[in-house]
């Protein structure tokens, strides 16, 4: 019996051993099974586009704790959208959603767990692949800026079971403009957002994934925390739709105006009384 126990222990150790330079046996059983396709769970909020807080409808009902300045910006944006414009929703021009909007999962999500990094893929507007570095690195002296931000994570075994069950992530280093959802709920133009996430499987249902996101941003009066849920698609070979924003996007931005390309290929206004684009560079238009 003693020999069997010894052999068993050595076998487990072997599953973790170095076997060749530059590569090692990666025991993915140590990590939660996050494979497959994850679909954002939309709570019963009465329709519309996915929202940052999925328990509330997008837009004003999000009850975002905005500062007075950013509430005014948001209201002006809603007015512009009501008149046919796009407001502060930058994704209409195929700029990436970035954080946190990418985690609204307008398109299905894939999570790839490896020892050095966890990747999150969402193909919406931009073919995002978030890199969450879990290799123990420190924050760089100069954090690179991007719409997705720079993420450092740490796996935690909260139950002492010998298996990781929680990924804690901090993300900094942004550029913009970014909004929380397609209603244009804006993040601060200084791009000093910090996001903290707790990503974990549901204790009762391993096909539900949760992401508790807390955003700290100068457009807010206080940190804002939401609880997101994703459902694993049961299909063993799910279809991954390719989303190319530049394909079939009829919105045309010229100057500060958004127009629409009609089915006949001609430019159309998007709001009442919208001025036509300035064609002073075209000699033929001056006739």
């Amino acid at each position: 019996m003693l020999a069997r126990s010894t052999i068993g222990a050595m076998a487990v150790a072997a599953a973790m051993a170095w076997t060749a330079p530059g590569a090692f046996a990666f025991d993915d059983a140590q990590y939660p099974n996050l494979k497959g396709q994850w679909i954002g769970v939309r709570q019963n909020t009465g329709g519309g586009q996915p929202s940052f807080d999925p328990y509330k409808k997008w837009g004003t009902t999000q009850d975002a704790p905005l500062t007075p300045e950013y509430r005014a910006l948001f209201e002006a944006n809603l007015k512009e959208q009501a008149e046919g414009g796009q407001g502060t929703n930058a994704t209409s021009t195929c700029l990436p959603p970035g954080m946190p909007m990418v985690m609204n999962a307008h398109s299905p999500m894939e999570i790839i767990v490896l020892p050095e990094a966890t990747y999150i893929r969402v193909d919406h507007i931009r073919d995002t692949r978030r890199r969450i570095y879990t290799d123990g690195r420190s924050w760089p002296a100069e954090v690179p800026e991007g719409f997705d931000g720079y993420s450092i994570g740490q796996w935690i075994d909260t139950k002492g079971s010998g298996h990781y069950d929680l990924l804690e992530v901090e993300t900094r280093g942004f550029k913009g403009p970014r909004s929380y959802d397609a209603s244009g709920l804006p993040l601060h133009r200084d791009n000093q957002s910090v996001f903290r996430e707790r990503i974990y499987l549901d204790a009762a249902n391993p096909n539900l994934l949760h992401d508790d996101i807390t955003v700290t941003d100068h457009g807010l009066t206080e940190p804002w925390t939401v609880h997101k849920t994703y459902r694993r698609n049961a299909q063993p070979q799910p279809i991954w739709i390719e989303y190319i924003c530049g394909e079939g996007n009829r919105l045309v931005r010229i100057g500060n105006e958004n127009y629409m390309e009609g089915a006949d290929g001609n430019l159309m206004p998007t709001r009442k009384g919208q001025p036509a684009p300035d064609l002073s560079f075209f000699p033929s238009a001056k006739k």
Partner: protein
Amino acid sequence: MRYRDLIGALVLAAAFVAAAGDAAAFDESKYPNLKGQWRRVPVPGVVGQPGYDQYKIQGRTQQAPLTPEATKIFEASLADQEAGGQGGDPTYICRSPGMPRIMTVYDPMEIVITPETVHVFIEHVHDNRRIYTDGRDWPKLIEPTFAGYSIGRWTDSKGAGRYDTLAVETRGFKGPRAFDATGIPLSSDNQTVIRERIFLDPADPNILYDDITTIDHSLTRPWSVAKKYGRAQAKQPLWEETNCAEGNGHVEIGGQGYFRSADGRLMPTKKDQPAPDLRYFKQGGK
């Protein structure tokens, strides 16, 4: 000695067994080490944007084995570009370059290996790929994409007990796609089949090759090229985000390509290019 041999064999076997639950121990050492950041290796004397054959300048010098019909389309593309247009290059308004052009690797590449899928991540326009290595068959219906649907198989060509080559086949395309920025066209029927052999240089593990063969109805024969990438040596390479729409001044209206001036007005890109039709506006443009 016999007892030690038994334990040694059990240890090796343990490296391959399912450890727990529904996840198996993933022995990365079975696969070549493709971690890190890969960049296309520049070729002395080859200037301008990179071509499908990276050892030749893009465009006519590629000597693409085009059919007569495809040659006409290509020459029309070059003429349009000469006049200020974009010709047959669809990427200027942020359409994906698609395969095989994705493997030109305009921006740095990362290859992430899992047992079921090899993920290829490249910034640039929309250049990520999934290569399924889970043993699946070709689906009856493939949703067409610019990147195509890729099935791959790892092989141990040397019998060394370790994979060294990834053989890939890709089908299921949409278009338009071109081989390079000059607009060397792939056929509008999108029946392209692409076969690749991806492997490390046996003499230098920081050099990666992708031998690509494209079979397409725009070609008189399969067209094979050898792509070569070098691994960056930085321990924590910088992955710069590239967003095509950010700062892109190109605009397409009614099939015509225009440009946004620095002050936000619309500019022609070709001599005597007609202005867009403003019939839907009550007052005309200035």
